[in-house]
C-alpha cells in the first residue's frame, strides 16, 4: 500500500519470491515458436562450417516464458512504481506518448541502409531535434550517432584531437576537476590524452587559481559538468573558459546535469565548445534497466567540419546524408539510437520552449525544497544554493551512530523509494547525492524528507536495524565479494558448481 505521497505504508512495492532461472523450466521437445511450412522447393544445400547440433537454448512453452518474465518484473523497482532520487541520473517520469512514438511502425520498421529518398521523415526527425538541441545548448551543429553519454564523451574528445591536428598541434593533456564523473578520466585516457586533475575549492567549485596554474601549451581542453557533481553552478565558468581558450584549448560540457539549466542558461553562452547531452536523463527517454540511452554531441560552428558522419543535410527540397568535410569518421554502426532520439523529439515538442524551461525551474525547486527539509543529521558540506540535486554527508551521523551513507540509502528502500547515489562525488565523505527531479509532487518530496529524517532518528535509537536494511525488499544486501571471487556468470557455470 502507498499513501497519496507515494510513500509505502505496508507491503513493499517490489516483492516476489526466488525465481528459478529459465533453463530450469526447460523440457526436451517443448517449444513456443512456430513457422509456416517452407514454401520454396527444398534445395540440396550443404554448407561448410555447419553446426553439428542446434545450440543448447532452453525449451519452454510461451505460457511458462511469460509467467517467468512477469514474475521477474515483480522483483524490480522502477520510476513507474515510485520516486527514484538517484543523484546524477535524472530519473524523471518517462511520458508514455514517447513510447507511442518509438513504436510507430513508420520508424521502427525502417532499415538503416534504406536510401535517403525513402527515409525523409527519419532524416527530418534528426534535423528537427538538432535545431532544438542546438538552440538549448547554444551550439551550431550536432551528431546523433553516440549511443550513450560515455560514447558522446569519446566522440567529443576525438573532435578535440582532430581540431588540434588541423592546426598542426599535438597537445597531450585534458584537464578535469576532481569531482568529475569516472567516465571523464576513462574517456580522456582512452582517447590517448593524459588526465590533468584540478582540485575543488572550499565552495565546492573548481579552484580558479589551481586551474590557471594547470593551463599551459600542452593542454588540449577542459571537461566540466555544470552544474557540477555537487549540484552547484560553477560561477566562474566564463573565466575558466577564457583561460582554456587563451592556449587554444577547447572546453567540453558534460551534459549529465543539463536538466538544471534548460532554457535558463546555455553552455554556448558560458564558453563551451563541445556539448554532449544525455537524452535518457534530460529529455525523459527511459533508462531501460541500463540502456539504451543516447549521447548526442553538439559543437560550435568552427568544429562542425569534424563531426562524425554521415549527418543529414538539406540539399534543395530533400535531405540527404553527407560526410562533414574533416569528419573524425563513424562512431556507431548505423545512425545512433534513433528511436531514443525520436522519443526525445516527441518530449521536446510536447513541452515546447516554456515547458522545457519549467523542467529546470521545478527540478531546482524540488531539490532546494528537499534539501531544506532534511534534519541536521545530514550535513550539507558546501552551502552554496543547489541546483537540480544536492550532496549531503552522513559523516556526522556515522560518527554518532555508526550508521553510514550506505545504510541510509538501503533503509530508504523500506519506505518505498529508490536509494540515492552514494559515495559520489569522491570529494564528500559519506556522500548521499539526491536528485528528486521535477516530476515529483511536493507531497512526494515531503514524504522523501520524512523518510530520510526518520531513518536518521532510527540510526540514533536502533542503529543495527538501519545497518541491516533493507528489510522489505525481495532480498537483503548481496555478497559482492563472493560474486567477484567465485564468478558464476551463466547457468552453465552454476551447473558446474
Amino acid at each position, binding site marked *: 500500500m502507498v499513501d497519496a505521497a507515494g510513500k509505502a505504508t505496508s507491503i513493499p512495492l517490489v516483492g516476489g519470491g526466488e525465481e528459478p532461472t*529459465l533453463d530450469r523450466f526447460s523440457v526436451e521437445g*517443448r517449444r513456443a515458436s512456430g513457422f509456416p511450412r*517452407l514454401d*520454396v522447393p527444398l534445395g540440396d544445400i550443404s554448407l561448410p562450417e555447419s*553446426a553439428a547440433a*542446434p545450440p543448447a537454448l532452453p525449451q519452454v512453452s510461451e505460457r511458462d*516464458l511469460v509467467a517467468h518474465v512477469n514474475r521477474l*518484473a515483480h*522483483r*524490480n*523497482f*522502477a*520510476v*513507474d512504481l515510485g520516486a527514484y532520487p538517484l543523484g546524477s541520473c535524472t530519473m524523471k*517520469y518517462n511520458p508514455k506518448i514517447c513510447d507511442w512514438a518509438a513504436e510507430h*511502425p513508420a520508424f*521502427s*520498421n525502417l*532499415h538503416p541502409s534504406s*536510401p535517403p529518398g525513402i527515409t525523409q521523415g*527519419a532524416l527530418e526527425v534528426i534535423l528537427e531535434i538538432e535545431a532544438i538541441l542546438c*538552440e538549448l545548448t*547554444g551550439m551550431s551543429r550536432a551528431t546523433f550517432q553516440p*549511443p550513450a553519454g*560515455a*560514447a558522446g564523451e*569519446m566522440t567529443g574528445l576525438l573532435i578535440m584531437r582532430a581540431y588540434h591536428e588541423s592546426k598542426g598541434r599535438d597537445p597531450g593533456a585534458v584537464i578535469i576537476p576532481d569531482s568529475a564523473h*569516472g*567516465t571523464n578520466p576513462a574517456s580522456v585516457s582512452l582517447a590517448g590524452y593524459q588526465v590533468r586533475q584540478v582540485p575543488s575549492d572550499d565552495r565546492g567549485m573548481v579552484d580558479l587559481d589551481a586551474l590557471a596554474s594547470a593551463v599551459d601549451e600542452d593542454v588540449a581542453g577542459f571537461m566540466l559538468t555544470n552544474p557540477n557533481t555537487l549540484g552547484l553552478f560553477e560561477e566562474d565558468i*566564463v573565466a575558466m573558459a577564457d583561460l582554456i581558450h587563451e592556449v587554444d584549448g577547447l572546453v567540453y560540457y558534460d551534459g549529465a546535469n543539463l536538466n538544471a539549466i534548460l532554457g535558463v*542558461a546555455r553552455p554556448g*553562452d558560458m564558453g563551451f565548445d563541445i556539448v554532449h547531452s544525455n537524452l535518457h536523463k534530460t529529455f525523459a527517454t*527511459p533508462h*531501460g534497466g*541500463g540502456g*539504451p540511452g543516447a549521447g548526442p554531441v553538439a559543437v560550435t560552428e568552427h568544429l562542425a567540419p569534424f563531426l562524425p558522419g554521415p549527418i543529414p543535410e538539406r540539399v534543395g527540397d530533400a535531405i540527404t546524408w553527407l560526410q562533414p568535410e574533416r569528419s*573524425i569518421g*563513424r562512431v*556507431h*554502426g548505423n545512425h545512433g539510437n*534513433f528511436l531514443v532520439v525520436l522519443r526525445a523529439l516527441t518530449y521536446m*515538442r*510536447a*513541452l515546447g*520552449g516554456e515547458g522545457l524551461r519549467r523542467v529546470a*525551474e521545478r527540478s*531546482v*525547486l524540488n531539490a532546494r525544497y528537499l534539501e531544506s527539509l532534511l534534519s541536521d543529521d545530514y550535513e550539507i558540506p558546501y552551502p552554496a544554493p543547489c541546483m537540480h540535486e544536492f550532496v549531503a554527508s552522513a559523516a556526522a551521523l556515522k560518527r554518532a551512530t555508526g550508521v553510514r551513507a550506505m545504510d541510509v540509502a538501503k533503509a530508504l*528502500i523500506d519506505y518505498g523509494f*529508490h536509494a540515492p547515489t552514494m559515495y559520489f562525488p569522491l570529494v564528500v565523505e559519506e556522500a548521499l547525492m539526491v536528485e528528486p527531479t521535477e516530476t515529483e*509532487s*511536493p507531497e512526494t518530496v515531503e514524504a522523501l524528507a520524512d523518510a530520510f529524517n526518520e531513518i536518521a532518528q532510527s540510526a540514533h535509537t536502533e542503529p543495527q536495524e538501519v545497518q541491516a536494511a533493507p528489510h522489505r525488499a525481495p*532480498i537483503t544486501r548481496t*555478497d*559482492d565479494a563472493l*560474486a*567477484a571471487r567465485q*564468478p*558464476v556468470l*551463466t547457468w552453465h557455470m552454476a551447473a558446474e558448481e
Partner: protein
Amino acid sequence: MDFTPHTSGDTQRMLAHLGLAEISDLFAHLPDEVRPAAPLDLPEALSEMEVMSHIDALGKRNRSGLLTFAGGGIYDHYLPPVVRTLTMRPEFVTSYTPYQSELSQGVLQLLFEYQSMVASLTGLPVSNSSLYDGPSSGLEAVNLAVAHKKRSAVWISRGVHPHTRQIIATFAHARGIEVVDHPLVGGRTVWAPEGVSQPAAIVMSQPNYLGVIEDYDAARAVATEQGALAIAEVDAMTLGILRTPGDAGFDIAFAEGQPYGNPMSFGGPVLGMFAVSKPLMRKIPGRLVGRTTDTEGRTAYTLTFRAREQDIRREKASSNICTNQSLNAIAASIHLAWLGPAGLNEVGHQSVQKAHYLAKRLEQLRGVKMATPGAPYAREFAILTPADPHHVVDQMAERGYLAGIPLSDDYPEFAGGLLVAVTEKRTVDELDGYATALEEVLADG
C-alpha cells in the same frame, strides 16, 4: 504538455518556505553573461494529439512497408508479439542500471539469462550483458586484444562489416593502433602475413559481409602462428545452423544482436553481443551480472567485476562504457527463449533455403551474376548487375522492394554489386516478385 505536477499554489508555498518570492530567484546566483541574450527560439508546446499528428506526418514522409531484402547486420525477421508485451513492462523500461541489487533482481536475473544464452550460442563461456551494437563491439574486441597482447597491430579481413572497420579506424588513430587489412579473393579472406607487424589479433567475419562462409580453421591457424587472439564477427541468426566460434577455437566473438528480439529501428537501439574465452574473463568490457547470495543465504544477482569499470578505475579503466543495451538484451533473451533450439534452427534453415532459391532465380536474369561465383553462402549473397546499384535500389523501391545494400561505396571492385539478404519472412511469391521486378528494372536500364 506539462509532466510536472506543481500547481501555482504549490510553487508559491515551496518558494515561500525557501524565503524566495519568484521562481527566477532560484537562479539569482547565476552570472548574467551565461543567460541567453534573447528569448530562445523554440517551438510552442503541443498537446498529445498535436504531437501525434506531427509524428504521424513525419512518418508519412518515409516510404514504409517495403519488402526488405537489405541486411548487413540488421535483418527483417519475424518478431513474435510476446517479445514486445514482455519487454515493455515498466519495471524493465523505466529502471536504471541495476546498481541497487535489492531492487533490481528482475533485470539482473534476465541479464544473467541473456549471458547464459549468448554463451550457448557462441560456444564461448563468458558473455557480457551487451554492448551498444555489433560494429562498436568490434572496436571493444580490438581494444581488449591490444591491451591483452601488448601489441599495437591488428589484422582485419576486408570481409568484416565496413562499419565495424570504419569505427575501428576512427579510434585507431587516437590510440595508436595499426590496422592491417587483408584482402578477399573469390569472396574469402587471404591472410597474407608477409612483411607486416605481428598482430594482437586477427579479426574475421562469419559469414562475411558479402555473405560468404569463411574458413574458421585457416584463420585460427594464422592467429596461432602469430601468437594473436582470434576474433570473429558473427551473424546472430545463423548461429543456429553454423559451427560456433567457440567450437572453432576463437577467443572473442561479437555480433549485431538486432535479429534477436529487436525491430530494425533505423539501426538503433540495437545491441552488441560479446563473448570471450575463460582466460579473458576478467578483461571483458561492459556490464557483467554474476550470481551470489544475500545475507540470508538466498540466491541473488549483482553486477560483478566492477573493479574493471570507469567509476572505480577512472583514468586506468580499460573501457569507458558504463551502460549496456539492457532493454534490447532483455528483448533478445525473450525472443531466443521463444525460438528455442528448434525455432532458431528453423529460422536459419528457411532463410538459407530461400536465399539460395532467390539467388538461383536472379542468376538466370540477363546481365546478373554472382559477385563471388562458387563461394559458399548462407542467407545473404552479393550479385553484380550492369546498372549502378543505387539506381537499382531506387527503382526497386518504386516497385515495393528494399532490394539490398549497394556494395560499390565500400567495395569499389564490385561497381555493380548489390548485397541481398533473405529471411524466413519472405514468401515464395515475394521472392518471385523480386526477381520479376529486378528484371524490369534492368531492362529499363
